[in-house]
């Protein structure tokens, strides 16, 4: 097992350096003069221009610039935002819990509903329910989620007035950030009704963000269950006279879960991409919205290292999923 982890870690390091190369290149590949682009004006005063080049380290040879960049990263210095003058790392830390909360809620929604629908569809293969679930899943998989979000807002927020249109919580409430998770913070605070309000804010974005993972999980669960239910040990379990529920959940679902878990891991990347769109629609103050706003404001340090942080996050989650997968399935562990 240790050698398996070591091998995977070995693969991780070149990937990480590759990503730093990519984010390093990002700011240098901007067509035209980077200082002019960043300041958003033409013909900058030559002295100011030189100073800016100096400050950004753009006047050194490329390899030295890259070494500087890696050196800064190694010291945990991710630069500071051009707009707010706060460090990129601390901005990331304050905004990330919002994205995490949204993503977890979305995964919870997608996971419970997707697993249930997938299992039932597999058990009732060929039935109307099965066809319905698969049709809905394919539709969900093809869904432009930015439009889906707008539709839900139009229906539930504008027409029915059930849920708020945007944000994480009503401005009336003053919630001190303890954990960064609004649901927990609102419970900790003694504001009345804050928790319900936070929940109402969370529901629509979570549904929107969870739609594509839901479709993928439902499809994957169904096909994994169908595969497993054909196995000999399931027939044996049935023949032994075990209750149908026990056969399905203990013998069937448990084994079908392995490929489903992998899909869960793969969905993390998709979730973060979806978060960019979902957060933009619902004005959810997370890293997705932060990134898009920074691109609009040509705040390149934020764009550069925000992307680096997200990439690291995805690499890390995939690494953990790989390890878990190796734990669950020895055949993966010993394969070269």
């Amino acid at each position, binding site marked *: 097992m240790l050698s398996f982890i070591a091998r995977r870690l070995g693969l991780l390091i070149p990937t990480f350096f*590759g990503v730093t190369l990519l984010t390093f290149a990002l700011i240098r590949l901007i*067509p035209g003069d980077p200082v002019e682009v960043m300041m958003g004006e033409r013909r900058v005063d030559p002295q100011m221009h030189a100073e800016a080049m100096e400050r950004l380290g753009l006047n050194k040879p490329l390899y030295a610039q890259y070494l500087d960049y890696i050196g800064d990263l190694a010291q945990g210095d991710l630069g500071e935002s051009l707009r707010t003058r706060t460090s990129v790392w601390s901005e990331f830390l304050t905004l990330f819990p919002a994205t995490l909360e949204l993503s977890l809620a979305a995964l919870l929604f997608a996971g419970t509903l997707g697993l249930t629908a997938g299992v039932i569809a597999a058990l009732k293969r060929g039935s109307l329910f099965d066809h319905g679930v698969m049709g809905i899943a394919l539709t969900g998989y093809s869904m432009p989620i930015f*439009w889906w979000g707008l*539709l839900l807002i139009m229906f539930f927020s504008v027409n029915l007035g059930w849920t708020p249109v945007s944000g994480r919580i009503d401005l009336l409430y003053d919630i001190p950030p303890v954990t960064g998770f609004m649901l927990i913070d609102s419970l900790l605070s003694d504001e009345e009704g804050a928790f319900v309000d936070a929940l109402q804010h969370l529901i629509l974005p979570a549904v929107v963000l969870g739609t594509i993972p839901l479709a993928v999980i439902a499809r994957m669960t169904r096909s994994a269950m169908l595969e497993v239910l054909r196995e000999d040990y399931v027939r044996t379990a049935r023949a032994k006279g075990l209750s149908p529920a026990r056969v399905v959940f203990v013998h069937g679902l448990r084994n079908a879960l392995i490929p489903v878990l992998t899909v869960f891991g793969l969905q993390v990347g998709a979730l973060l991409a979806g978060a960019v769109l979902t957060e933009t629609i619902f004005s959810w103050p997370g890293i997705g919205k932060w990134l898009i706003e920074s*691109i609009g404001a040509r705040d390149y340090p934020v764009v550069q290292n925000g992307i680096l942080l997200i*990439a690291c996050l995805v690499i890390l989650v995939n690494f953990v999923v790989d390890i878990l997968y190796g734990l669950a399935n020895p055949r993966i562990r010993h394969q070269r």
Partner: protein
Amino acid sequence: MNASTEVPVIDQSLLYPSPLKEFWQAFAHNKGAVAGLLFMLLVVFCALFAPWVAPYNPSEQFRDFLLTPPAWLEGGQAQFLLGTDELGRDLLSRLIHGARLSLMIGLASVLMSLIPGILLGLTAGFFPRLLGPSIMRLMDVMLALPSLLLAVAIVAILGPGLINTVIAIAIVSLPAYVRLTRAAVMGELHRDYVTASRLAGAGLLRLMFVTVLPNCMAPLIVQATLSFSSAILDAAALGFLGLGVQPPTPEWGTMLASARDYIERAWWVVSLPGLTILLSVLAINLMGDGLRDALDPKLKNAV
């Protein structure tokens, strides 16, 4: 020996169906795939003949008819079948012209990633010692970023616009082709027919393109369909974020972005472009499923 023996003429087509016919039978078996194909044929027709099919010029503004509802609703005008947008432009015409753009973005980005992807994948498969792993590491780096975010990053560098959208989407879908081609090549490389052709003196290029590549095409065609649909989705998403094709070009995602402000008053300017995106992507995905079942039965139950 001049006695001519009558050779009974056997209609070969009755013995073995031609590959094309066999393929069509398998494809037509999947009703969803046929429905998808029909819908896409309609979209392609509209896109090809947009100037003749669309009732109006997509940027012509009818100042007296701002935000007219679709014809079947109260206040609707028969001349604007799907209603008009905030500037009085005919929605149907814009959607039809948008089909042109979306299909073009899809086609261009698929070609721009399929061809380099196949070349890189073949190289990686044929040189498994040094070149292969380095190509694959590079692809891993690109896969570390979620596709839309990578596209956003690329557009952030290049600036928004139609061509940059295509480039960004092409770069984003590259790794899938490289991985698929390489995996297929590795599977074929040790087959007897490849060894035979090697022994017969086939050169590297011949081995790559004539011997091996045709046998790797099935998964690539399926992937090309799938990435065509995700290209349409990503292009619309970029347009929606204001990073893609810029207004007033009638791109579906861009249309949605500018319709956002009218969400309370005019549901049709919000609903119809999105519905068009959904239906097109759904149709292509249905077709992709059918293609996969017909070309690559091994994958039948994969997601």
